[in-house]
């Protein structure tokens, strides 16, 4: 369990920073509405938003764990290795290019959701955001093949990413997050290299 928490922590840090960089500009107006004053009116939409994300993560974690349990017999080291390589490629591309053009799910959906003013749905959608570190988290849970593991993994993942979003919401300080985003991208590159080596080690006997 502890290992799961650590990996989730790392991935959460990597993706959390990135999500922030991409989504903060759209998130901020949603969160810091025009004349919201005081802590509670600030916190309420954030809580709704977080609930949405938590739900999405729990579903993803449980489903990935469950599917992994079913797929366990066919997961040969060779296939796991190959999927690691694919993940590595995704992570590297994402880290070095700073996201993909046309992969900006949250940016696409943002105007719509902003008009709806429904933080819960916004969180839910962002929770399903399929950026590579998130995929890596899914793959890890899948390969472990336990529902409980998946839930625990994504719980930590959720907590870590929330940690990054909270100060943003409370303080509304956007500028800082551009450098955090760069840290997140480089972390993705390093984790990508890690997956590359892990994949190669599985493929080369």
């Amino acid at each position, binding site marked *: 369990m*502890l*290992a799961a928490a*650590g*990996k989730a*922590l*790392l991935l959460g*840090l*990597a993706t959390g920073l990135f999500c922030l960089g991409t989504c903060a500009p759209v998130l901020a107006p949603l969160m810091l509405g025009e004349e919201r004053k005081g802590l509670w009116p600030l916190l309420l939409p954030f809580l709704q938003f977080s609930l949405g994300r938590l739900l999405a993560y729990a579903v993803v974690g449980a489903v990935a764990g469950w599917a992994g349990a079913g797929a366990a017999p066919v997961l040969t080291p060779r296939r796991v290795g190959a999927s690691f390589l694919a993940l590595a490629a995704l992570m590297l591309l994402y880290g070095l290019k700073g996201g993909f053009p046309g992969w900006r799910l949250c940016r696409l959906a943002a105007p719509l959701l902003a008009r709806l003013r429904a933080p819960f749905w916004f969180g839910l959608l962002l929770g399903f955001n399929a950026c590579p570190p998130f995929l890596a988290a899914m793959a890890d849970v899948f390969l472990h093949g336990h529902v409980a593991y998946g839930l625990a993994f994504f719980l930590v993942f959720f907590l870590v990413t929330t940690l990054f979003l909270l100060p943003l919401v409370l303080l509304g300080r956007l500028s800082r997050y551009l*450098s955090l985003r*760069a*840290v*997140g*991208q*480089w*972390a993705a*590159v*390093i*984790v990508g290299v*890690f997956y590359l080596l892990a994949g190669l080690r599985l493929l080369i006997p």
Partner: protein
Amino acid sequence: MPRTLICGHSRSASIFLTTVLFFMMAFLLVGGNRNNAGMMQASLVYLVFMTVLAYLLFRSGRVHRYRSIFFSVYAIAFVLNFIPILLETRGHIALTGRDIANLDTPLCHLTIPMLILPGLVYGVLIFPTKLFANMGFYPMLFLWLGATVVLGKGWCSWGCFYGGLDEFFSKLLPKRIVSSRKFNYSLRWFPFALLLVIVVWSFLALDPVYCGWLCPFKAVTEFVQPTNWLIWVQTGIFVVLFLGLVVVLPLLMKRRTQCGLFCPFGAFQSFVGLANPYRVRIDKEKCNQCGACVDQCPTFAITRETLAKNKVSITCARCGRCMEICPRDAIQFSLLGVPLRGHDARKPGFLSEVFRPDSLFTFGALLFGAVISGGMAAQVLLRFVHLARTGSFLFR
């Protein structure tokens, strides 16, 4: 390049600062070697060297130039001393399984961020070193804590025995070969990402992974004896990283690429160093955004974006370069909570010159640097004498 405006101290203030520093250094450098005549003489030589540097530094105000000489000498002395010590005490440089099992590996500060989490959770030291040995865990931890309070991130320009190596190579060539006009400054966040990864990974693997896989300084200190292909790969990585980041890139770019773009401890120190009250600040009244400092900062801490906000990044290593080349004297060492006055706008007078934030910072940093490097420098001096007399660099 426009005429530079560097703010040194008046002669009387320089003499005063240097004299006080001299006595404090003498007390610590020579006083510690009372029982060893050879070390005492060698320390005296080093003391004179540091005193001369300090006077030149205070008088001319060229913090970077004179610090750079000290810092390079320090790092080279470290390497020249470290390897012979290993040979004298262990008989070989490369680490063997036996040395590891005996906990005979000296610890360096780079491991500290990786040791904290496992230490807290499992109560165990995951690096094969002794708790109380000379270069063991607690002495190093204590030294680092002290340095963090006294120097903060300034450790990376005044205290770290590796930093001087890439500083040395970044100074060797007179002209830059690779310009950094198109440099991607987001690379300066890479050390933070690396820090994040190695801290989590070391905790999971209970193994200081950075030491095993990535540390460029293995190439000049010690490394695991290659007994299988995996260790050969690791050794290859060290050598490539060292040559690339510490030698070739600094030569070409005239920047400290290892410290600015790789070292995860530097990233760590950027955070914990905030405990120290000194900062490098840019005076927005004076700065005209010429960008000279962006081009020169050895650790890539000033970019066009940070400059526009009159800020330096938290990665600033307090090296003094920017203030030396700023044509408008807009950048200074400053104390938190004390407004920037500018060197020329200060009240004239002896006391106000001695009590300038930059004087106080450089004074402390010089003292710390001199003492921490003193033993090594003196020993290397003795080794050279020994070499001349007996033809051997080793004492035994």
